[in-house]
């Protein structure tokens, strides 16, 4: 007699079949160390937790998204990093990117700018190879020529003391755009993350950066209320090795630190918190990233409400930009990276991000060539317009797996938060090296996974092929003659200024550095409008507020 097919589920039978089919397999865990079961069900999450865990988008726990309509109301912004060569090159390429569909502008300066130097202070060989060289308000006007400031949001990669933003403000003044119409974000304002990882952005001492950042937040709230003065960055730490849960934990801890620093200076948190934004890495660990974003959003709303005591949904909105992770990309078979980026981007959108940068497939080879940059933008257009990922808010909400994993990631993130709290908060945890050590340990653990082959990477430790050498037409380096001309123009610009006026503006900076009743960022804006250069302003503040060398750990 044949076995009858029962309509009832038989758990023991399933388990027996599962075990037989997977004999000898090792248990699975995600990058954050959470065990992953093969099947999730009502024993992991039930819909009677809907109100407590999820609620509606834009309300309550905020898990499902920070706005009621999410992408129906406003699609995520495509914010591609652009930067190479001179201000003229930047303007040219930015206009073409806008034509390809980029809806927000982003500016990635040259490493010399990041390090706080003018172009005449570094080896000219390095100028413009990794970003655009902008040292003055005049050059910013060239870079932004023809771009309607009041209609586009700008992402500036602009660490303390925010000279690039000061140059944008000077440009706006000159072209008649009121400051309260300027919208965008001071990316790279999170100096703590620079101290941990990505030291390239480090310009001032920890204490000096703390002072300037709070002044910047205060100044923007009063004079440029549509500007997001702070972007708290988890991306650097995840790129430096932190697991997704650790990166989220460190980021939330930094958010708490900055909020408390603002409060200590007497700022109204209800007014400044809505201008806090966040910036994350999206790895290819799809469900882990989705759960990371959902858990982070829920935790930040809880922190704002319970820990910071602010009961305003606008302050609790966890607005974030995310960038697909370069660490997952491979030099081997580089076109495969287009697929990796698409998968990462999908995870970010399903996680509810507000804006996104998709990496070009060749970023692991060099600065992207234009075709690669165009494919990166097209990837976002395809996800939105062809795959329709913008149609349903939090489409994975209610999935047994996603909800269970979101809860587990939340618990894991809270462990990291507690570690930082025990060290005395993020400022102290960074100063003492705890965060750097934890990132380093996780980086080694990941490397061991890849070295052992437990983590397969296509083309690296599996499915390798014999490849011809790189046949792409490489991104042209800036023409030495162009750089030379740019340097000469810069020298002429500096020579044409009245030395006494410049000296006075820089002395005003020094005076503000000594007197914390004066808003230091306000003085940076004045200096920028008078014609002081990036290197002059940053150099003076580095002298007065000190420079913080990163802890050397290996």
């Amino acid at each position, binding site marked *: 007699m044949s076995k009858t097919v029962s309509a009832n589920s038989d758990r023991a039978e399933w388990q027996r079949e599962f075990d037989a089919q997977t004999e000898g397999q090792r248990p699975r865990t995600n990058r954050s160390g959470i065990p992953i079961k093969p099947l999730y069900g009502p024993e992991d999450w039930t819909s009677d937790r809907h109100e407590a865990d999820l609620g509606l988008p834009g309300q309550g726990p905020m898990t499902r998204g920070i706005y009621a309509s999410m992408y129906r109301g406003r699609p995520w912004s495509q914010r591609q990093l652009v930067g190479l060569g001179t201000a003229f090159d930047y303007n040219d390429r930015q206009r073409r990117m806008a034509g390809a569909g980029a809806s927000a502008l982003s500016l990635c300066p040259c490493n010399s700018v990041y390090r706080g130097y003018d172009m005449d202070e570094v080896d000219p060989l390095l100028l413009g190879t990794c970003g655009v060289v902008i040292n003055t308000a005049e050059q910013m006007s060239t870079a932004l020529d023809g771009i309607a400031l009041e209609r586009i949001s700008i992402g500036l990669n602009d660490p303390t003391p925010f000279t690039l933003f000061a140059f944008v403000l000077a440009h706006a003044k000159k072209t008649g755009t009121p400051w309260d119409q300027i919208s965008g974000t001071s990316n790279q304002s999170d100096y703590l993350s620079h101290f941990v990882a990505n030291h390239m952005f480090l310009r001032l001492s920890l204490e000096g950066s703390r002072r300037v950042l709070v002044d910047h937040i205060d100044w923007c709230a009063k004079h440029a209320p549509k500007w997001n003065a702070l972007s708290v960055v988890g991306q650097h730490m995840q790129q430096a090795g932190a697991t997704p849960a650790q990166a989220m934990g460190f980021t939330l801890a930094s958010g708490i630190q900055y909020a408390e620093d603002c409060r200590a200076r007497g700022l109204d948190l209800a007014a400044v918190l809505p201008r806090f934004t966040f910036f994350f890495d999206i790895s290819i660990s799809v469900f882990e990233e989705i759960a990371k974003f959902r858990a982070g959003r829920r935790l930040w709303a809880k922190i704002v409400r319970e820990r910071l005591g602010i009961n305003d949904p606008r302050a609790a909105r966890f607005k974030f930009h995310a960038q697909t992770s370069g660490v997952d990309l491979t030099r081997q078979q580089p076109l495969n990276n287009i697929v990796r980026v698409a998968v990462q981007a999908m995870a970010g959108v399903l996680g509810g991000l507000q804006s996104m940068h998709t990496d070009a497939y060749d970023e692991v080879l060099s600065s992207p060539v234009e075709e690669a940059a165009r494919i990166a933008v097209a990837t976002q257009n395809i996800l939105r317009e062809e795959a329709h990922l913008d149609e349903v808010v939090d489409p994975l909400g209610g999935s047994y797996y996603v909800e269970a994993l979101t809860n587990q990631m939340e618990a894991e993130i809270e462990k990291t938060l507690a570690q930082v709290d025990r060290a005395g908060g993020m400022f102290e945890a960074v100063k003492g090296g705890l965060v750097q050590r934890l990132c380093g340990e996780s*980086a080694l653990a990941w490397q061991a996974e890849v070295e052992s082959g437990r983590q397969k990477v296509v083309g690296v430790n599996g499915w390798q092929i014999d490849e011809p050498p790189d046949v792409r037409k490489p991104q042209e380096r800036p023409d030495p003659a162009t750089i030379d001309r740019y340097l000469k123009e810069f020298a002429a610009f500096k020579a044409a200024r009245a030395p006494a006026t410049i000296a006075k503006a820089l002395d005003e900076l020094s005076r503000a550095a000594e007197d914390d009743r004066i808003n230091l960022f306000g003085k940076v804006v004045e200096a920028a409008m008078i014609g002081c250069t990036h290197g002059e302003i940053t150099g003076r503040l580095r002298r007065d507020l000190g420079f913080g060398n990163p802890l050397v750990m290996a």
Partner: protein
Amino acid sequence: MTTDLRPPKVLMTKIGLDGHDRGGRVVATYLRDAGMEVVFTGPWKSIPEVIATAQEEDVDVIGISSLASDHLLVPKLMAALRENGLDHVGVVVGGIVPDRDERDLLAVGVARVFHPGASLDEIVPFVDRLAKNVRQRRQGL
């Protein structure tokens, strides 16, 4: 002549402007685990600083980690090594180096360029062999 029994000594450093240090830290840890002595510096070292450290520490190999075009300065480092009588020191570069630049670096005497995805199984023995060859050549002088 006695054989030099000290472990191979490697200077891991970064020149130029970039500060990404994950790769350098991971490689330094593996070299140490393999028994080598590693001098690890912070980022942004000038070429004269690298030369001075290489002299003071008497290293066999210099490892340059470059993730954002600082490798363009390596030819200047190679020239400075020669000028300071440090031609014997082996130089290895790791990070993001386009193919056309790799050819330029090998042409000026860089022993090897390791790209993203290079296995530590490859890097560690290479550096070890390079350091031992450097020692032998110096003793042969």
